């Protein structure tokens, strides 16, 4: 290659890199502003509605109370949406170094520390030990917590949620299964489940971002996600990652 062409290419690469860096900085600034400025009015709406609801009984008609509850709920929903959307954009951008992770140990830690995964609220069984996977610890935690939360949330009324986590190893890859006793999902929804803002049920609260986040994070760790499910027969979500070599002592 002639030397001037080479230098030309070098300069172009540098220019593009600078542009990209500026774009990323813009985006960071944008999400920072969203967190700070867009959430404030929602906090105000939610809180003023709550303050009115705290007025003594009799000072508001029942339908007035109901409208206030709806205002508060809607503001809370929008706030959840913003937080989930931010988590998603963070997952897309943040550096996520990969290394060997022991999924069973990670899950055990989560069961101990997350109040909603305690035995009184859900029965979560882990087929210990699980094979080590190539992942990012924070990313995998995000995936597991979303999958477990979904499994616990989507049960028929009065049913104690049960989740079983197991693994399958094939051709150097580990498929981690999360099988639940939930309401199940009709097959026609399976393709849309992992897309942004898609929700299969309107009976349960949600932002429609959780599973999109799981997919995005898993893909960034070189993996894949999927589901097998039918109404009334529970769901079996899976994430598949590379099998890690012999588990080393983690630093």
């Amino acid at each position: 290659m002639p030397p001037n062409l080479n230098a030309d290419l070098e300069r172009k690469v540098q220019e593009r890199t600078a542009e990209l860096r500026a774009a990323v900085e813009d985006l960071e600034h944008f999400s920072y502003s969203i967190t700070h400025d867009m959430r404030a009015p929602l906090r105000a709406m939610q809180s003023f509605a709550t303050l009115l609801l705290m007025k003594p009984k009799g000072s508001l008609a029942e339908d007035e109370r109901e409208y206030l509850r709806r205002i508060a709920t809607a503001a809370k929903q929008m706030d959840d949406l913003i937080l989930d959307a931010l988590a998603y954009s963070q997952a897309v951008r943040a550096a996520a170094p990969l290394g060997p992770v022991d999924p069973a140990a990670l899950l055990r830690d989560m069961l101990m520390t997350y109040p909603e995964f305690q035995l009184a609220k859900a029965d979560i069984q882990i087929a210990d030990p699980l094979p080590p996977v190539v992942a990012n610890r924070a990313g995998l935690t995000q995936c597991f917590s979303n999958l477990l939360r979904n499994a616990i949330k989507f049960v028929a009324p009065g049913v104690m949620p049960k989740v079983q986590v197991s693994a399958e190893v094939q051709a150097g890859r580990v498929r981690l299964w999360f099988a639940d006793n939930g309401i199940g999902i009709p097959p026609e929804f399976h393709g849309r489940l992992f897309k942004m803002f898609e929700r299969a049920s309107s009976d349960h609260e949600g932002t429609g971002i959780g599973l999109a986040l799981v997919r995005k994070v898993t893909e960034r760790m070189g993996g894949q996600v999927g589901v097998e499910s039918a109404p009334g027969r529970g769901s079996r979500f899976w994430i598949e990652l590379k099998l890690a070599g012999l588990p080393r002592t983690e630093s």
Partner: protein
Amino acid sequence: MNGDCILYADDDINDAFFMQYAFTDAGIFNRLQIITDGQAAINYLAGVGSFSDRLRYPLPCLALLDLKMPRKTGLEVLAWIRAQPRFCCLPVIVFTASANPADMEKAGRLGANSFVVKPISVAERSEFARAIRAFWLNFHCSLPASAWPVESAA
């Protein structure tokens, strides 16, 4: 209980209103001095202009600083506070909308005593106010004004 006033700098008047509500709910009777931008917070502490009237604008025993404010940010106010010898021991709580790691690090380096993400609900806000009352107004020992370091001659 320490009865001096509490300085709260925040440009969001709703948040200021809720904080006043939560403080009253928590049985905090210290006057809450609400300041709506960073430069005004510095002027207040420095006693510039009408703020020199210390009967109306007494020095606080605690400062709550929002980060994103007009004119001067909360971090700039914090840096100014720590550069003043007499405010070396003034407890400062950074009180902001998100646990941004970069902000947390800067606040820590500049000498914030605590970093708190603004509670969203009325109930959580009251709990925060009760915690302030229990810790900063009761257990915490503040340096008496008579023991304040003398300003170094500029």
